[in-house]
């Protein structure tokens, strides 16, 4: 598939045009509604950094119960055993399934926590970041935006195991309280990624050039 790239980079903002976040239409920034699709129109996402930071802190607070409380309770022969996310990984390690333990550790611990750190770094870098890394930082933003919903895997795994492993008197799995906290972490950090405006980083460079 052939590709076409705009040759002279001229930003819409410098022409007083805003891009609609729903339909990508370029329209005068003084209009409040997009003339094409009717969505609210902003030159840049409003209060982007403040909103993103507020949501990130919320996610951090929720991350504590998500890891401390049990994510599921295995009831085997009438004996309930609660397990946390980390506990599940340790259990798999002890049972000798190191590769599976590594995959689950990566998906449920590394990805959610590094996503929060990456978003904090991006917020900080809007003002202080070196202009040479703009392209890399934009890619970093795309990555955080993309992996957002993938952290939901853990919640779905609990939902599937609860439905699947249901042999009364032998083995039954119940969902733990951490599942709700974990689902909230994922949703709040998705909203944080959605409210961050990567164009603010490029604006900073344009301002410095002038």
């Amino acid at each position, binding site marked *: 598939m052939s590709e076409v*790239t705009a040759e002279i980079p001229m930003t819409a903002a410098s022409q007083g045009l805003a891009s609609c976040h729903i339909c990508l239409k370029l329209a005068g920034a003084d209009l409040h509604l997009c003339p094409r699709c009717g969505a609210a129109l902003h030159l840049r996402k409003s209060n982007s950094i403040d909103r993103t930071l507020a949501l990130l802190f919320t996610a951090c607070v929720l991350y504590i119960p998500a890891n401390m409380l049990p994510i599921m309770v295995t009831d085997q022969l009438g004996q309930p055993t609660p397990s946390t996310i980390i506990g599940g990984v340790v259990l798999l390690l002890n049972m000798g399934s190191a590769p599976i333990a590594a995959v689950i550790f990566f998906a449920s611990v590394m990805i959610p926590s590094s996503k929060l750190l990456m978003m904090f770094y991006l917020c900080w870098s809007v003002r202080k970041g070196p202009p040479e890394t703009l392209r890399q930082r*934009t890619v970093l933003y795309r990555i955080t935006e993309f992996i957002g919903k993938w952290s939901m895997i853990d919640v779905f795994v609990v939902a599937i195991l609860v439905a699947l492993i249901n042999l009364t008197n032998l083995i039954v799995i119940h969902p733990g309280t951490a599942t709700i906290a974990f689902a909230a972490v994922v949703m709040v950090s998705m909203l944080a990624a959605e409210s961050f405006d990567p164009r603010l980083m490029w604006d900073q460079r344009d301002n410095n050039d002038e």
Partner: protein
Amino acid sequence: MFDISILKDGESARCSRCGHFLSSYRGDETSRVIAYTSSALILLALACSYPFMAFKASGLESLMTLPQTAINLWRDGMPSLALLVAAFIIFIPALVLILILALNIALLKERHYHWLRPVGRLVYTLQNWCMVEVFFIGILVSLVKVGHMATVVMGLSFWAYAAFSGFFVLSLSGLDRAQCWRRIEALNDE
């Protein structure tokens, strides 16, 4: 700024600053999307109506269906989580597919309806909250977790959901945002 109207069939545009994909143009986009979307809807209906997986241990067997992933959470005292799971894997994807189908049939017939704009807005707002592919990987992870302790048998619904997630991804990625809105705008102007 980039004028996407210069794109020819099969071409795609990228941002000159960050290199991110912007838009691509295919002459047969609408009919493709209609085909993918209707296949996905039929497969989702199938996936909801047959057994999904069965779990066997010590001569006992428990059978699970797709809606049960949410229903059992509800029964276990987590109604909020049950609603979220049901919304992310069944209801929002189904709604988005129905809206995409309606939108593209209107675009194919080149007829203007007053609901085109709100429906288009809803499709692009809800898109991020469809977790069909994520759930599918979740199934694979659960299989790995349970596989060593008991026998798990996949039912018809499992294969239907696997195919559904494939068509769902094709349908969403086939619907180019900029091109779709350009055509809605053209119908509105008439």
